[in-house]
C-alpha cells in the first residue's frame, strides 16, 4: 500500500518533470501553468515565441497581462478561469496581446488541473496563434481541442488530461498504463505505424502526423498529432509528449472543400461560353476547359504547357503585351481588357479577358487564372446597332433635304449620292416600272402614292453582300423618294391648276375688257347715231308741222316721222343699256296710280294685239298707288307687252295686276311659243333672245333693261315658261320702292 503511494508520488513527480520538459519543447503552442489565482507558474518555448515574453519576465506575474485592455476591463481572464473551474475547461478565441503590444488572434483552452484529492491546484492554458489562418478556418479552429499526454519510451501512456479524455473517450485510469497504439486503427497497428512514429520522434526529436485515430467506443476521428521527444537533464530519452488534436471537423470541411473544388473543376471544365484556364507563374497553360477549346480551338493536349502568348496577335506579342498583363495581374491581383485574340486557325475574335493572380495560403504566386469570353457576336451586334443608327440618321437627313427641296431631280441626285456613300456600293439607280434590274442587284420598291411608271424601283449593286440593314436603308431612301415624287406630282397638278386659273383669269379679264369695250361702243354708237337722227327728225318734224304737203307725200312724211321716232327709241334703249352697264341708271320716283298706267299701256297695245289676233284680257284693280319711276315702269310694261304680242301671236294675252301686302304683283301671260328651260336663265341678259333672230327681230335688250329697272326698284322679275305653251312674266315691286324724298339714286352696277 505504502509502496503504492510512493509509486504514485514518484510517478507524479516524474510526470511534472516530464510535463515541464514536454511543454518546454513545444513551439507551436503556448502551454502555461497557472496557479488558482492565475499567476504564471511555467512558460514554455511556444509561449515565448507566441507571446513574446521570456520566462524571467513573466513568471510570477498575473496572466491577465496577456489579454487586451478591453478584455481585462471586462474581466475576461477571470471569467475564463471561473468557467474552467466550474466545467473543467474553458475555450475561447480572441485577441491576445504580445509583449511588444501587438495583437494576435488566439485559440485558447484553459483546463482546470486537479490534485489527487480533486482540489483545483491550478490551470493549464494552451494558446495557439491563429492570426495567419483565414477567417473560415477560425470556425474550424473553434471546435478544436487538444489531448495532451505523455508516453514512456515504449509508448505506454503515463499521463492524461481532460482534453485527452474528451478526444479519446478514455478516462485517465483507463488510459494510463496502456500502449498508445490503442488509439490507432487496426490497419495502422498492423502496419506498425505507432512504433514507426515513436521511432522517428525519438530520432528526429519531433514528428507530426495526420490520420485516423480510434476512440474508446471504436469511432474514428481525424487527428493532427505531434509527438515530441522528452529528455532528462542529461539528454537521455525519458519519454514523449503527445499532443493530439481532433481534426475531424476540419477534415470533413476539407473533404467538403475538396468536393466543392471538384464540382467547381467539373463545372469549369463544362463551361462552354467562357474559356477558363490556369497559367503557371511563367504564363504556360496549366489547365484547359471546354469553353477554352470551343473559343480558341485548341484541345487540352495541344495547348497545356504552351505559353499563353500564342493567343495574342503578333504585333502585341512583339510589343510584350502578354508579359505586361501577367505583371499587372501579379502586382494588382487582376487585369481586365477587351481586345483581339487569335484562334488556333489564325482567325481573330474580340475577347473580354480577365487575368487573376492565384496565390497559395501563404500569399505565394502559384499562377494565374484566365477567363476569356468571345465578344465577337456582341461586338458585331453593337456595331450593327451603331451602323443602323447611322443609316437612320442619314435617311432622316435625306428626308429633311427632300422636304426642303422642291426639285425632284435634286432629291434624286442627293438620294443616289447618299446611298453610294453610306452603303459604299458600286451602283445605285432608279428603274422604270417594267425595267429589269442589273444582274446581282437588290431592288426595293418605290411606293409612290400615284403609280408612276418613271419611278418603279431602287436598284443597288455591290460587290459585297448587302445586309438586312442595308436593305432597310435602301427602303428608307426609296420611301423618301416616294414622298418627293408624290410631292412633285401634286406640285405638278398644282402648277397645272394654277396655270389654268391664271388662264381663266386672263380669259375673264379679256371678257371683262371686251364687255367694257362693247359698253363703250354702245355708248359711242348711240351718241353718234343720235346726231344725224337729230337733224333728220327736226327736218321731218319741221316739214310735218309746216303742213301743206299733199297726199300721198303727206302720208309718206308721216311714216318717215314714225320711223325716225322708232329709231330714236331704239337708240334710247341702247343708251339705257349703256347706262345700266356703266352703273349710271338714275331713278326719278313719284307717287302715281299703277292701275291707270297699266290700263293706258294696255290700251296702246290693243291695236297691235288685235293685229296679232290675240285677245288682250285685263285683270286690273281700280287703284294701285305706289312710289315708282313712272317712265321706267312704263318701259317695263311696254317691253313685256310687246314681247307677249310678238311671241304670243294668235293666242290670248292676260295682264293682271294685284296687291299682295306691301308688294304689287304684275303678271303678263301669253300662250305662245314659250321658252326652253335652258334659255330661261339667260333671257334677262344683254343681247339675249330665246327666239331665232330670223323670225323675230329686236336687239334682245328689252328683258335686260326690264330686269334692271325692276331691280332698281328693289323688285323681282321671274318667268314661268314651257316650250310651246307660253310664258308668264311676273314682276313684283315694293309699293314704296323709295323714300318719299327719293330722287336720283345711282343704281348698282349692272354687272354685279
Amino acid at each position, binding site marked *: 500500500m505504502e509502496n503504492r503511494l510512493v509509486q504514485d508520488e514518484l510517478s507524479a513527480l516524474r510526470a511534472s518533470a516530464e510535463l515541464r520538459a514536454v511543454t518546454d519543447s513545444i513551439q507551436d503552442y503556448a502551454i502555461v501553468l497557472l496557479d488558482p489565482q492565475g499567476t504564471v507558474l511555467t512558460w514554455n518555448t511556444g509561449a515565448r515565441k507566441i507571446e513574446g515574453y521570456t520566462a524571467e519576465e513573466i513568471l510570477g506575474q498575473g496572466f491577465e497581462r496577456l489579454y487586451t485592455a478591453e478584455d481585462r476591463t471586462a474581466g475576461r481572464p477571470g471569467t475564463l478561469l471561473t468557467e474552467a473551474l466550474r466545467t473543467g475547461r474553458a475555450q475561447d478565441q480572441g485577441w491576445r496581446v504580445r509583449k511588444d503590444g501587438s495583437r494576435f488572434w488566439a485559440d485558447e483552452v484553459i483546463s482546470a488541473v486537479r490534485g489527487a484529492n480533486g482540489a483545483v491546484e491550478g490551470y493549464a492554458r494552451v494558446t495557439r496563434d491563429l492570426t495567419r489562418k483565414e477567417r473560415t478556418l477560425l470556425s474550424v479552429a473553434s471546435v478544436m481541442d487538444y489531448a495532451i499526454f505523455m508516453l514512456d519510451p515504449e509508448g505506454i501512456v503515463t499521463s492524461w488530461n481532460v482534453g485527452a479524455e474528451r478526444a479519446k473517450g478514455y478516462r485517465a485510469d483507463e488510459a494510463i498504463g496502456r500502449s498508445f497504439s490503442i488509439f490507432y486503427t487496426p490497419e495502422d497497428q498492423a502496419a506498425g505505424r505507432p512504433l514507426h512514429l515513436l521511432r522517428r520522434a525519438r530520432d528526429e526529436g519531433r514528428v507530426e502526423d495526420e490520420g485516423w485515430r480510434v476512440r474508446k467506443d471504436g469511432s474514428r476521428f481525424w487527428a493532427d498529432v505531434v509527438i515530441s521527444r522528452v529528455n532528462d537533464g542529461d539528454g537521455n530519452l525519458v519519454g514523449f509528449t503527445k499532443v493530439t488534436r481532433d481534426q475531424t471537423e476540419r477534415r470533413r470541411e476539407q473533404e467538403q472543400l475538396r468536393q466543392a473544388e471538384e464540382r467547381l473543376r467539373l463545372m469549369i471544365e463544362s463551361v462552354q461560353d467562357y474559356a477558363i484556364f490556369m497559367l503557371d507563374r511563367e504564363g504556360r497553360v496549366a489547365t484547359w476547359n471546354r469553353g477554352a477549346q470551343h473559343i480558341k480551338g485548341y484541345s487540352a493536349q495541344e495547348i497545356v504547357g504552351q505559353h499563353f502568348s500564342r493567343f495574342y496577335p503578333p504585333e502585341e506579342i512583339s510589343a510584350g503585351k502578354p508579359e505586361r498583363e501577367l505583371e499587372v495581374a501579379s502586382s494588382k491581383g487582376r487585369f481586365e481588357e477587351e481586345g483581339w485574340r487569335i484562334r488556333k486557325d489564325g482567325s481573330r475574335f474580340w475577347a473580354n479577358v480577365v487575368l487573376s493572380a492565384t496565390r497559395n495560403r501563404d500569399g505565394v504566386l502559384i499562377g494565374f487564372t484566365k477567363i476569356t469570353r468571345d465578344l465577337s457576336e456582341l461586338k458585331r451586334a453593337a456595331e450593327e446597332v451603331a451602323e443602323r443608327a447611322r443609316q437612320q440618321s442619314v435617311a432622316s437627313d435625306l428626308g429633311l433635304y427632300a422636304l426642303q427641296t422642291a426639285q425632284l431631280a435634286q432629291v434624286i441626285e442627293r438620294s443616289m449620292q447618299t446611298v453610294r456613300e453610306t452603303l459604299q456600293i458600286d451602283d445605285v439607280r432608279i428603274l422604270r416600272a417594267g425595267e429589269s434590274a442589273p444582274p446581282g442587284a437588290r431592288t426595293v420598291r418605290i411606293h409612290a402614292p400615284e403609280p408612276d411608271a418613271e419611278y418603279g424601283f431602287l436598284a443597288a449593286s455591290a460587290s459585297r453582300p448587302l445586309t438586312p440593314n442595308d436593305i432597310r436603308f435602301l427602303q428608307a431612301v426609296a420611301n423618301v423618294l416616294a414622298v418627293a415624287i408624290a410631292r412633285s406630282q401634286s406640285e405638278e397638278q398644282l402648277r397645272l391648276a394654277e396655270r389654268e386659273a391664271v388662264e381663266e383669269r386672263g380669259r375673264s379679264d379679256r371678257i371683262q375688257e371686251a364687255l367694257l369695250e362693247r359698253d363703250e361702243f354702245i355708248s359711242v354708237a348711240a351718241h353718234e347715231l*343720235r346726231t344725224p337722227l*337729230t337733224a333728220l327728225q327736226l327736218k321731218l*318734224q319741221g316739214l310735218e308741222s309746216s303742213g301743206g304737203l299733199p297726199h300721198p307725200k303727206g302720208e309718206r312724211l308721216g311714216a318717215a316721222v314714225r320711223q325716225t321716232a322708232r329709231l330714236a327709241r331704239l337708240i334710247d334703249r341702247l343708251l339705257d343699256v349703256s347706262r345700266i352697264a356703266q352703273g349710271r341708271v338714275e331713278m326719278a320716283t313719284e307717287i302715281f296710280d299703277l292701275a291707270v298706267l297699266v290700263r293706258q299701256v294696255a290700251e296702246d297695245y290693243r291695236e297691235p294685239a288685235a293685229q296679232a289676233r290675240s285677245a288682250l284680257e285685263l285683270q286690273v284693280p281700280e287703284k294701285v298707288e305706289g312710289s315708282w319711276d313712272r317712265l321706267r315702269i312704263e318701259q317695263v310694261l311696254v317691253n313685256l307687252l310687246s314681247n307677249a304680242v310678238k311671241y304670243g301671236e294668235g293666242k290670248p294675252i292676260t295682264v293682271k295686276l294685284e296687291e299682295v301686302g306691301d308688294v304689287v304683283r304684275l303678271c303678263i301671260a301669253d300662250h305662245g311659243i314659250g321658252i326652253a328651260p335652258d334659255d330661261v336663265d339667260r333671257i334677262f341678259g344683254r343681247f339675249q333672245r330665246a327666239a331665232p333672230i330670223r323670225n323675230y327681230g329686236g336687239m334682245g335688250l328689252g328683258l335686260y333693261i326690264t330686269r334692271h329697272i325692276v331691280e332698281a326698284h328693289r323688285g323681282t322679275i321671274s318667268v314661268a315658261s314651257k316650250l310651246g305653251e307660253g310664258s308668264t312674266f311676273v314682276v313684283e315691286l315694293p309699293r314704296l320702292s323709295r323714300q318719299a324724298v327719293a330722287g336720283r339714286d345711282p343704281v348698282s352696277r349692272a354687272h354685279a
Partner: protein
Amino acid sequence: MTRPGCGRTVLIVEDDADTRLALAEVLQDVNYRPLHAANGAAALQELRAATTAPCVILLDVMMPIMDGKSFRTEQQKDPALSEIPVVVLSAHADLDSAAEQMQAAGFLRKPVELSALLATVAQFCAQE
C-alpha cells in the same frame, strides 16, 4: 327770263353741219334769227362780233377745237357774254348732270323733238 333787246336771235353752237342747219331751218321757220358757230372758239368770235347779243345759246357739248364746257367757262369769264343763257344740247347719256355742272339754263336731249325745241327757245326770246 327774256333779256331786253335780244329780239329773236339764237346762237347755235354745233359741230355737225346738218344738225346745225336743221336747227337753224326749223327756228327760221318760226321767225327766229339764228346765228351759227361750228365750235366754242367760233361761237366766242361770233358773240364778240355780233351787234346784237342772242337771247339764248344752244350749245352742243362734244365739239372739236373748243368743246361746250370750255366755251361755257370762257363765256362766264367775259362779263359782256356771261349773262346770255345757255341750253345744252347733247346725245350724251348723262346730259342732265352735265347741264347742271355747266350751270346751263336748260337741256335738250338729241334727237330733239321739234316741239320741245321750240318750247325751250321760246322761254328766252321775245314773243312775236
